[in-house]
């Protein structure tokens, strides 16, 4: 007998998960980050993350006993993306129509003049942060997703400042052995050697020894420089300028 997938029943869990995300009923774990606390479900969270699993399983630690996990050191916005991911298998940054997630964590300083802030044009840094958070808490699926989106963002949504910040994030919040985003960064620097003319990048190269090393090794392997020698040659930069003005 052939088992045919019944569309309605096979998709049954998806709306159900979304409901769970919004509904605190049945939740058995609280994640506190910054000022915000979110009620989540161990059954959803723990199987995806060894960190959360260990925190909940060890009844001898405070978390295991109280069912409350505080993440004081993390960026609440990124933590919220992570929680969103647990229930939706994806995450959205600055969704203009549904501001709920950014509302939750927007601080007083910015909430007042929110309207005058233009929509953010590049998410490169955010993806890098999601990536390192996923690495920290050992969430393989999220890490993979962030990697893909980081890669796409660099190709389609270029912003130099954002990229420069992302380099710092990647080289300080993941271990050297984690080559995922580093490879993309180095390949981008190689393709666009004009960036090396910028002081910001030069500062980074001075500061981050492993970045310099990675880049040299990349050049060594490629044996020549990438195509876009000047900023004006770079199609991505041209595109951004057209957008801006």
């Amino acid at each position, binding site marked *: 007998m052939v088992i045919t997938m019944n569309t309605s029943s096979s998709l049954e869990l998806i709306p159900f998960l979304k409901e769970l995300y919004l509904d605190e009923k049945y939740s058995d774990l609280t994640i506190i980050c910054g000022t915000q606390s979110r009620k989540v479900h161990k059954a959803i969270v723990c199987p995806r993350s060894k960190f959360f699993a260990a925190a909940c399983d060890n009844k001898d630690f*405070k978390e295991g006993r109280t069912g409350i996990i505080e993440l004081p050191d993390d960026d*609440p*916005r990124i933590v919220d993306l992570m929680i969103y991911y647990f229930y939706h298998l994806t995450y959205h940054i*600055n969704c203009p129509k549904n501001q709920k997630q*950014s509302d939750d964590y927007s601080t007083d300083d910015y909430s007042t003049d929110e309207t005058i*802030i233009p*929509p953010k044009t590049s998410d490169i840094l955010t993806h890098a942060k999601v990536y390192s958070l996923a690495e920290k808490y050992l969430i393989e699926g999220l890490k993979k997703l962030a990697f893909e989106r980081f890669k796409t963002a660099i190709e389609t949504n270029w912003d130099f400042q954002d990229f420069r910040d992302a380099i710092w994030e990647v080289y300080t919040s993941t*271990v050297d052995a984690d080559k995922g985003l580093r490879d993309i960064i180095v390949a981008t620097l190689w393709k666009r050697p004009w960036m090396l003319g910028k002081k910001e990048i030069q500062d980074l190269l001075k500061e981050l020894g492993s970045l310099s090393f990675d880049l040299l090794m990349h050049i060594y392997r490629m044996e020549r420089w990438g195509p876009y020698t000047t900023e004006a040659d770079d199609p991505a930069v041209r595109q951004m300028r057209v957008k801006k003005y």
Partner: protein
Amino acid sequence: MITGRGGSGSRGRIRPPRRPVGRPGQPDDFEQCWDKLREALRDIHNKNAGDLSFEQLYRYSYKIVLKKAGNQLYDRVKDFEEQWFAEQVMPPIWALITKNLISITLDEAPGTSIAERRSMGEKFLKGVRGSWESHNMSMNMIADILMYLDRGYTQDCSRPSIYTTTIGLFRNHILRSGLGTSEPQYHVFDILNATIIDQINMEREGDVIDKALIRSCISMLECLFETDEEQEQERLYLTTFEPFYIRTSHVFYKSECERLLREGDASAWLRYTKRRLAEEAGRCQTTVSPLSIHKIAAVVEQELISKHLEEFLNLEGSGIRSMIDNDRIEDLTILYNLVSRIDPKKTALRNALAVRVVELGNEIEQTLRNTDFSIAQTSDSKEPAGSAKKMNAAAQQTAAAIKWVDDVLLLKDKFDRLWTTCFDEDLTLQTALTKSFSDFVNSFGRGAEFVSLFIDDNLKRGIKGKTEAEVDVVLDKAITLLRYIGEKDKFEQYYQKHLARRLLHGKSESQEVEQEMISRMKRELGNNFTQKFEGMFRDMSTSKETTEDYRNHVRGLGALEHNQIDLSISVLAGNNWPKEVMGRFTGLADGPKIKATYPREIQRLQESFFEFYTKNRNGRVLTWVGSAGTADIKCLFPKIPGKTTGPLAKDRRYDVNISTYGMIVLLLFENVGEDEWLTFEEIQAATSIPQPDLINALTSVSSLKPYRLLTKKSGESKESQANSAAKPTDQFTFNREFVSKTIKLRVPSVNAANKVENDDERKETDQKTIETRKYVIDAAIVRIMKQRKELLHSQLITEVIQVLAGRFKPDLPLIKNRIEDLLSREYVERVELSDGPPAYRYVA
């Protein structure tokens, strides 16, 4: 918080810190984190972790790793744990290893009671368990908070994980540490193993032990590995404990087995072994380790089953012989299960069964031979005692044959029953049993004859009043026996002979059953085998039609005479019927044919029938077989003058059914005067009946009292001879004073009953068998050679044996002899191969 950037140049976000960041691995940062972590480790060991935040500790180690100080953290943790272990874990363990414990476990010091040993052992094991469990739990928690160290550092540097390293401390510092100067060759491990084994042995002896305690200690050994590589095969349990466990188990069961051997009760041994196997399997689940379940079973199998199997099987009074003889179903079932464990071919059991089958088979034969012997003796010593006795002896012999068959069948039933109930219908055993049966049936030279006689007896009498199902059983048995018989051709001969008698004398109980028997044989042995039998049935049914036709023909002639003789004829096609039935004179070696002289009336009848028969069948020759037929005669015994009372005073009429030869002889006396005697020679001259047949005919009408139609006298003393067989020197006369209570008499013909052959007959049969075989072998050789044209000698022999295997097992000299013969008759010729093996070529 970071939500976007300001519209002007001023960035509304937290910049990646421009300030000189705390450099990775900066001493202050690290030391700060490590201090916190060290406190936490201590708290965890002291079971005081309740207020520690997992996230915080995780974050410390995460930060350290991120700042590339993983190796420092790793080393610090390791140092801390080693120190902790030395100071806090080991001293209590050492306190448990007392001198007393060492001497009990390693030297088996005498004088300590079991209870004392058990409690001391338990105390030690509990100490080890407690220490292990708390160590293990702490190490699990520590490994969890240091999870990122394993991920970010340990893996990249291919160092063993924190858990592996710290858990290994238990192995390196406790299990592998020596016992100090007193026993330098021993380690704590030896004490642990010996203590556990001691406990297990106590349980084997019937004591109650703390199973869960042992299981905990064993699972510790399962969790620990020889090295930090953690190779699956290098679990300490497998490398250190298990070999010791297996070795000591060997010792334990070896001595147990020796005890059982001394006690000499196979039945107790079987049950003991079965129980021990179950116990050990259970022990692996509850007390030791499932990893050893097969190995420990192998120990029991080897020590308790394999090593002394033969000895237990041969035990007098309880061994396999007694199990079989007394139908000890349960014993045999256990035995089968045990033997199956150690040997899929079950060699020992198979052989024992085979031997017993043959022994029992030979016993049957022995019993029979004894019976045979006594009867033979009687008839030898009382040779002149009279034919009635001898007939009796022959009948007894036949009965003995049937008894033999019955006994064999009983034996077969017995083993079949054992096979189904005890041996799980094992195919190997079935083959062995079948072979053994076949062996003894064939080693007993008269199997073929006896089986045929058994069928004969059943078809004549045995199936009377039986239901179809019961008859079916009888037929099945017959076929079963038939399967055992190797010399199928001999059986064919006997069956042909016996069937002929049944058919001609109308002795068969049921035509249907006869046919069924034949068709079963056909299924079992093929068309060829039953061809003749079917021919015989065909002859009988055509003869019935012929007789009917002839009667109609005679009626049509209208010449109904007063003393019309009714003829019922069986026309037998020569090939289908045994030579004995066809009359001795048709035998090949019997020289010129002698025709019996029939009385004139009969001759007329014969001519009339011959004329009728050949009308439609030109060129047929009919030979009258006097020895095979019977005749119904109406006899009138006139009243004896002078007698006034009793039956003799009247005329007496009897309807006598008698063999054809008997009829000829009786008719001869029709014209003999009152006190005239005819000598044997005179009768023979007048009738030309062959001497042996004549003796039979005369004996049947002169010896047995109820059928004494003729009076016999001889030159020797009369009285003693009255009952004996007729002899060529005797004289005969019509017994006028014959009286019988019944009107209808059926004179039994002396040799008509199917019975066991005497030695001469058997010799003759054997001779005939060999003669027939010669032709069969000739035919086989020629067929093979015709097909193959050229063939090596050895291949030819093999093929001949193969082709004939279904019928009989030809012996080599005979085949060689036949090849020689065919060479001389130029059916085949030798092929000259230089230095090659001998070979033959077919001559077209």
